[in-house]
């Protein structure tokens, strides 16, 4: 099997470490991928120094969307929010360690889109956020 379904992706899909919902939270945002019905919600607590204190994701979808959400959350805890705002497509592809075609790229980028829309306080998660 090719590396699209690398062990690390299957592992994060089956046993995500950061699946859940934080209450209370400072930031919450959710969106769907209309193409396949993938759904991601992110809740996030911020620290007084402007870093991410804790975060969780919830939702359902394919292995790529759910594993990339878990990897993303794991990687941003402790990061300054200003740095989170700058994350883009390449960052996710590096986390996943794979190349993706245009359709699956949408699955992989859903969690980052949701995260950035939440951090920026936007009403809608648009594709431009992750270009």
């Amino acid at each position, binding site marked *: 099997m090719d590396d699209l379904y690398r062990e690390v992706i299957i592992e994060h899909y089956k046993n995500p470490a950061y699946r859940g919902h934080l209450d209370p939270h400072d930031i919450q945002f959710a969106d769907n991928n209309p193409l*396949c*019905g993938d759904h991601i919600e992110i809740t996030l607590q911020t620290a007084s120094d402007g870093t991410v204190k804790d975060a969780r994701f919830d939702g359902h979808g394919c292995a790529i969307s759910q594993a990339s959400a878990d990897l993303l959350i794991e990687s941003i805890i402790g990061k300054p929010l200003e740095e989170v705002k700058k994350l883009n497509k390449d960052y996710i592809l590096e986390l996943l360690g794979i190349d993706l075609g245009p359709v699956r790229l949408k699955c992989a980028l859903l969690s980052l889109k949701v995260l950035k829309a939440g951090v920026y306080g936007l009403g809608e998660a648009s594709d431009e956020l992750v270009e």
Partner: protein
Amino acid sequence: MLNTNEIRRDFPILERATAGGARVTYLDSTATSQKPLTVIEAMDVFYRRSNANIHRGVHTLAEEATALYESAREKIARFVNAPSARQIVYTRNATEAINLVAYTWARSNLKAGDLIILTEMEHHSNLVPWHMLAAERGIELDFIPVTEDGLLDLDAYRSLLARDPKLVAFTHMSNVLGTINPAMEIIRLARDAGAVSLVDAAQSVPHLTVDVQALDADFLAFSAHKMCGPTGIGALYGKTELLESMPPFLGGGDMIKEVKLRSFRPNTLPHKFEAGTPAIAEAVGFGAAVDYLTKIGMDNIAAHEHEITEYALERLDEVPGVKVFGPPSDKKGGVTSFTLEGVHPHDVAQILDRDGIAIRAGHHCAQPLHEKFGIPATSRASFYLYNTKEEVDLLVNGLYKVKELFG
């Protein structure tokens, strides 16, 4: 069973290899069918020999192009047993055919508070045009419910009919569940209640013998690309008195009899509804597709698909964790939607693609139906005249690989 060895030779695409090196196993004909050589060549020959714009020219090429365009219409009319080719309006696809009815017949006949009956198993193409109309005109929509086993609840339909609906618009065959709805009965009951009927036949015309006169349908919509024809062309059948009474759809050339600076008189049927230069080569291809299907025989195609679907349901039933949606094989066409426990349909489709197996994953443009069953998405394998039982085996083997990977 059809002689698939022979039939597959008509479809060159079925010989090609996919990215992984395996030969393509095409189980996605519900989305679009593959095209036989006769269709591809008919369009090629049209462009090489006869290409010209239709109807207005007097030169040789224009006359030939017009004759080909109109003779394709006659073939299509015969194929669905329409009384006259004037009752076949070319559209871009079934979606545009439904929109045509929504924009012309419905907007000139329905008013605020009027009821349209749809079903819970509609494709978005037979939902959204009515949503748009409802929002614009204050029309009410209600829905024939789908039962657990994927059938329409006809008792509920009878109670809906008591509310004096003006239109009943429904799919002849579900693109998700494969359910073949009792169209004749639905239409008869609609007529008894004084409602006009519209059949979304995008899935039935390619796979079953459809006779618009036997059905007594008022409107019936279908697409060429799902029945071995090209994309970009479809058809609306309508009863003559309805089509005559409707205002035109789009305005432009060809749909007019006479134009003055401040007014126009619409053309006669069916040209009244065909503004601008149409998809001429595609119409020729549509005609060739109808010839191809007629030669093989729609009853033979339906029987072939039935046998494959029965086999597929039997084999899928053996795979632990697979859940198939929809009615038993005697009530459905060659569409099988399923879920595999613990694996998202997109992952199923992607892993099967490694072995060249093409299925579809998602909500198949029927989101409300998926919501009804409480699932975001399904995997869908669909069959046509070129598919074989061996391809069902490849699908099942592929599903075991998916299970292994996701252990």
